[in-house]
């Protein structure tokens, strides 16, 4: 499955990066293709292209703050999950995101 994710947290220095690492690992374990944009205290890193977003089958916002440039996702249905859930148990959180996405279709 093609997945794109955005991670962000209030401090922008710890959870943001730990969640990104966790999402990446969980997606690889599940055999998914993953691209992650990090919106941390240093600004946006590894920005997703509009193409990445259009092609994605699943969009995950691992955030507990607002996402920057939200208008890129207008036609999409992102799944919002607290970054803490990914840091705690990334595989479980990824499963949850997939289930939520399936139930919305």
């Amino acid at each position, binding site marked *: 499955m093609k997945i794109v994710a955005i991670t962000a*947290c*209030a*401090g*922008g*220095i*710890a*959870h943001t*990066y*730990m969640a990104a*690492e*966790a999402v990446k*690992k969980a997606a690889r374990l599940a055999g998914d293709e993953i691209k992650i944009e990090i919106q941390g*205290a240093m600004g946006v890193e590894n920005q997703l292209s509009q193409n990445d977003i259009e092609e994605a089958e699943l969009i995950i916002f691992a*955030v*507990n*703050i*607002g996402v920057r440039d*939200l208008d890129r996702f207008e036609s999409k249905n992102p799944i919002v999950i607290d970054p*803490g859930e990914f*840091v*705690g*148990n*990334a*595989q479980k959180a990824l499963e949850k995101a997939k289930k939520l996405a399936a139930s919305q279709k």
Partner: protein
Amino acid sequence: MKGRDLQRHLLTGVSYFIPFVVAGGILIALGFLFGGIYVFNDSNLAAQIFWIGKDAFGVMVGVLSAYIAFSIADRPAIAVGFIGGMVANRIGAGFIGGLLSGFLAGYVVLYLKKINLPAAIRSLMPVLFIPVIGTLIVGLATFYLIGPPATWLNTTFANMLNNMSVSGTVIISLILGAMMAFDMGGPVNKAAYAFALAASQNNNWVPMAAVMVGGMVPPLAIAFAMLAAKNKFTEDEQGGLTGCFIGAACFITEFAIPYAAADPLRVIPSIMVGSAVGALVSYMAGVSLMAPHGGLFIFALANKPLMWIVSIIIGAIAGAVMLLVLKPVLKADQQKKKSESKVGLDL
């Protein structure tokens, strides 16, 4: 409007607000450090540093308000929220006033955005109507409606903290410390931090010293426990030893998360006790710290630097001892086991 959304807007505001508090707090403290306690009467370099810090503090309530509003209604809400926050600041409604003006500005602008104007004048919405009408509504409401109760809350809160009995002080410091450790950088931790920030708005920096101790203790307690008994941690966990020391020194409580995730029922109570003890020692010793972030690197800005470090170490020892008592010795094969939750510790 769900509670979760409100929390997200608040945290967005806080995330933009923190650098202002850090810059302001540390520059003011440096001004005092170099220029003495009457630095504001001078016009030397130390005084300039002090006043730059003061300028940062002057806009920070505005910034908090602006970015709460931004999180709710995007770009057009920034100006309205910012000005509302500056009104709150001017009338002494402080942090609480700015928080409320930010939410108000966000929802007012969100509502204004929905009004359908004729196509000919639609472009006037973001450049004229929202800034003028939005600011007028939010400014007046902040002055007349939000201001009085928020100012009252602010002064009551300050008086309560300044005139607290010994038992009250013990309870508040224990709670603040335990909250800092409870979710290691999550909303409960941020709530305790916000409490200390609110107190600092009234020039009381004792809670700030205590919460920073509370935030630094968890990774340090785990590091101490690992040094004392390697056989109670997996090899993966031991690999994070340096990370724990760095996390503690930088006031990044999150470094404790992988350990807590792997063994929550033993780790979380232990670090909560450690942080509570550390915060208590700092609070009772009357340590005040005029810097809202920075960890070990800003120890010289505390009024009692040595006592502050001692309270961190006492807290960490308390947490480590409890953790060692609770944690069983691992068998050789258990120690090799990869913990699934290990993330982000590769430095």
